[in-house]
């Protein structure tokens, strides 16, 4: 690697430095826009005691769900975990800890974490189990709760295209949590469908500037769909 060239050519290089007990922030919504190869590499490395921050936890045999097979996840911070039977079982058995977090609060926790903001007040969750133990403050007569931001040792991201400098473009709704997650990792690793030369992406069309990105790898994606729905 030289200068701003972020491209790595093996998954081992892409995930080098991940260790037991790390917090991993992952982009994706359901199975849409997930870094499939980086997740596979974490499974291969058998890194344990992970805290995973992601909107969902994949399904039993795909996405982050595969990290449950060998009990690699200690805790997950997510908004919805309903598609995963193994997850439910490990939760009931006390193997895994879950911090259910409202989806917008989760996105803002990542955004704030990456932006150097340690916490923020939101009306979301006030008066619900989510508010338990959290500071309440009134603004203009309405109560808000204090939510703390999140950063992690690693962020694992799926983008459509990257240039060698790590500037990213996402495709359609595969964007979702990826741009915020990319800002919240101390080491941000991005798996993409296509790597182009600097200058090939229009500067004004870049969704995530390369300053947030440490490593880029070209992946191969299955892109599994959870619910294929068509109109007749």
């Amino acid at each position, binding site marked *: 690697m030289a200068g701003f060239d972020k491209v790595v050519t093996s998954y081992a290089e892409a995930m080098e430095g991940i260790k037991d007990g790390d917090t991993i922030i992952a982009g994706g*919504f*359901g*199975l*849409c*826009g997930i870094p499939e190869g980086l997740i596979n590499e974490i499974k291969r490395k058998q890194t344990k005691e992970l805290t995973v921050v992601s*909107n969902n936890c994949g399904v039993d045999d795909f996405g982050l769900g595969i990290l449950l097979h060998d009990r690699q996840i200690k805790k997950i911070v*997510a*908004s*919805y*975990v*309903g598609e995963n039977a193994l997850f*439910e079982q490990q*939760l009931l058995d006390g193997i895994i800890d*879950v911090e*259910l977090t*409202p*989806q*917008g*609060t*989760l*996105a*803002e926790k*990542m*955004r704030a974490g990456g932006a150097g903001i340690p916490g923020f007040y*939101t*009306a*979301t*969750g*006030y*008066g*619900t*189990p*989510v508010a338990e133990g959290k500071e309440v403050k009134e603004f203009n007569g309405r109560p808000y709760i204090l939510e703390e931001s999140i950063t992690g040792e690693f962020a694992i991201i799926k983008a*459509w295209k990257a240039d060698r400098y790590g500037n990213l473009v*996402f*495709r*359609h*709704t*595969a*964007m*979702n*949590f*990826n*741009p*915020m997650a990319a800002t919240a990792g101390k080491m941000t690793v991005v798996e993409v469908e296509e790597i182009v030369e600097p200058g090939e992406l229009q500067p004004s069309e870049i*969704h995530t500037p390369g300053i947030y990105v440490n490593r880029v790898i070209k992946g191969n994606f299955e*892109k*599994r*769909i*959870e*619910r*294929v*729905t*068509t*109109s007749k």
Partner: protein
Amino acid sequence: MALSREQVAMRVAQELKDGYYVNLGIGIPTLVANFVPAGIEVMLQSENGLLGMGPYPNEDQVDADMINAGKETVTAATGAAIFNSAESFAMIRGGHVDLTVLGAFEVDQQGNIASWMIPKKLIKGMGGAMDLVAGAQNIIVTMTHASKHGDSKLLEACTLPLTGVNCVKKIVTDLAVLEVKDGAFYLLERAPNVSVDEIISKTAGKLIVEGDIPEMQFTD
């Protein structure tokens, strides 16, 4: 007679106004999109990052990168915009979405809603529901008026863990349309051939019935 799921959706659709940005939850709320009144335009927001959700794709248009918040494959309508999750919830939390329609397990007379968790039974997560009920300008809840066992879902106080407090303004059930204000349910309309007495008997919370209650009108 109690309304079908489609009829509940049809009645909710009558609440849509031209130029509304609307978020529709999973289940009956999703069906509302099929009954947008002629002559008005609404734009559907899907909280995974799509404003201007179109119909399901044809088989050859299916794209893994194009889904809605229910993880179903969809298309983008003409004039749609796609953005990240923080932006999506900025528009929700910031009060820019005109109407949210969602289902619930229970609603109470203070406008509190429980829709995401049944302790020891259902622990799936709240998804975006807590942000939606905290942020929307107007919230309509769709649900059956009572459970299969006849237990009312319109209560004095919710018994299940809450999704949000003091937020539900209107409820459309299979039996009635009700407004929630001043700590009570106000009966506005009843389903065709459903008596006020039946609604009273299936409403556990404080119910206000003022004057003659009209039947819902469905025009095709």
